[in-house]
């Protein structure tokens, strides 16, 4: 049902008609699809731009994100500095472009780690017998008692600050929900016909787990994977806004926003640029994520 969730990018443009899934569409057809889902196309374009920013930042700006010049401080957006300059006279556009990579890396890494730990716990709960199920169930109950942001702060307090621990903190906050989803799905899959067939064929327990149960139990998580990446990027920006990100000179969206807040009346661009960038990124990922989820459920949106 949800192979659509893993479909190549070209298919996202077609909302309902699955018979058109062969993406060798004529230009006119592509044109029509773009007109029908402009939000989806804009979202994809923005994400492609971000990936390029992250991979080759120097292709987009020749200015050094760390080069301070007190004489150039607080310049409003103009031809020389498209997004203006910050309190130390650094070019804001350059800082935003160079800060893209860290946001994307933190979002992706946290999601993948949260996925790995969550599915391991979920599988253990579903397949490890009643005692394992009860123990993990109560453990997850306990973790669910904490709002995500607070759980992340607890983890940072114990493990210390820094980007790696920031990623771990966001990842751990995702674990309870992921584990529950995988557990519920694994319980269904375990009783399915194909697992029974594999057992009858005499496959080893490990082979059944690895080849049959794991890929199918992960499906509900994979469908919401893009949405989780969006949430992680927002969470990491929030934590770096609070001062738990990379230390000051590093260009980080949340940190730029936190500093800009102090100069809000005089230099609105210091806040507007990171606020817009974070929001547009989360929104773009949400639009694509919702489309994937809807397609996997056979809906248009």
């Amino acid at each position, binding site marked *: 049902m949800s192979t659509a969730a893993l479909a190549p990018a070209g298919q996202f443009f077609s909302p309902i008609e699955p018979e058109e899934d062969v993406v060798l569409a004529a230009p006119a057809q592509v044109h029509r699809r773009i007109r029908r889902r402009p939000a989806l196309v804009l979202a994809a374009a923005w994400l492609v731009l971000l990936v390029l920013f992250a991979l080759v930042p120097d292709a987009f700006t020749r200015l050094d994100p760390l080069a301070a010049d007190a004489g150039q401080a607080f310049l409003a957006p103009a031809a020389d500095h498209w997004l203006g300059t910050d309190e130390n006279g650094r070019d804001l556009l350059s800082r935003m472009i160079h800060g893209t990579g860290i946001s994307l890396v933190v979002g992706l890494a946290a999601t993948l780690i949260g996925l790995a730990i969550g599915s391991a716990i979920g599988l253990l709960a579903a397949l490890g017998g009643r005692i394992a199920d009860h123990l993990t169930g109560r453990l997850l109950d306990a973790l669910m008692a904490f*709002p995500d*942001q607070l759980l992340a*702060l607890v983890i940072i307090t*114990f493990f210390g600050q820094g980007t790696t621990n920031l990623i771990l903190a966001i990842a751990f906050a995702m674990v309870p929900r992921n584990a529950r989803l995988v557990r519920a799905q694994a319980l269904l899959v375990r009783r399915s016909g194909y697992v029974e067939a594999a057992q009858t064929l005499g496959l080893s327990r490990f082979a059944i787990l690895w080849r049959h149960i794991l890929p199918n139990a992960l499906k509900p998580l994979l469908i919401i994977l893009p949405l989780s990446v969006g949430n992680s990027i927002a969470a990491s920006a929030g934590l770096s806004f*609070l001062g738990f990100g990379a230390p000051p000179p590093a260009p980080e969206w949340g940190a730029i926003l936190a500093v800009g807040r102090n100069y809000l009346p005089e230099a609105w661009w210091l806040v507007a640029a990171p606020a817009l960038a974070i929001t547009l990124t989360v929104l773009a990922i949400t639009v694509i994520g919702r489309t994937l989820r809807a397609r996997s459920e056979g809906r248009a949106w």
Partner: protein
Amino acid sequence: MTLLRTLATRLASGVLVLWIVATLTFGAMHATAGDPAIAILGGPDALPTQAVVEEVRREYGLNDPLPVQYARYLGRLLSGDLGESYRLRTPVTSAILEQLGSTVVLGGIAGVLALAIALGLALVGAGRGPRVGGAITAVEVVITAVPNFVIGVGLMFLLAFQLRLVPVAGEQGWASLVLPVLTLAIPSSIVMAQVLRSELDEVLEQPFILTARARGLGEAGVRVLHALRHAVIPLLTLAGYVFGFLLGGTVITETLFARRGIGRLMVDSALTSDIPMVIGISLFIALSYVLVTLIVDLIAAAVDPRARLA
């Protein structure tokens, strides 16, 4: 009788959750926090002599076997003693209680406002066909994509700096509550409105709605008097989540608007690695979450007989 049994099972699982949280924090404290004796003396920078460290170890019972320390830890927690803050040098319990009022006021007002907004949005927007429904969904998706600190800074710029209607930050008077309350209420109201609206969409298709309409009841009457009652029950089960959502939101809101409160206390404690305070707040939050879900479960069981079986 069933209500009593529900109460007993929920109470037992709540106590279990608290015990696990206490055990986890004890384990984390001993696995990662370094030497507690040195932390008590003000960290490694304080350069305490070996004799002083030994003295503190004896005094705090840090030389005892781990199970003994664990039992003593649980005993202290049961008597409401959460230890002493490294940073503030005051008991954690009194520090939390001092900050609690501010958070309760902020979260309470924001919660009521969010509920009112959600009810309004859902009652007006439900059952309007795919076109209006799609437009509302699109607006909801856009608003949920805006992180709460962006909402907060945006409101601050607009209402405080441009229009000069309210103070930028601080806690002087009711006007200073406007920005933090809105920042906290807007995202939560959207979460609730989404659930309420999809529930109302379904309820409005039910036969008893048709009956009500056939009796000549107006659209507003149908929605408020008949549909809403049924749509509110799922909202009740969402209450624990909304509680956590509001509480988590205070972390950003209280810091951004320079208010006192639990969220701000948590940020300051995490920034300074004040482990007893962070653990204390964690246990306190777990306790309040358990209590809130317990109360919500009981209300749900009282309102909806089907929930008693769960």
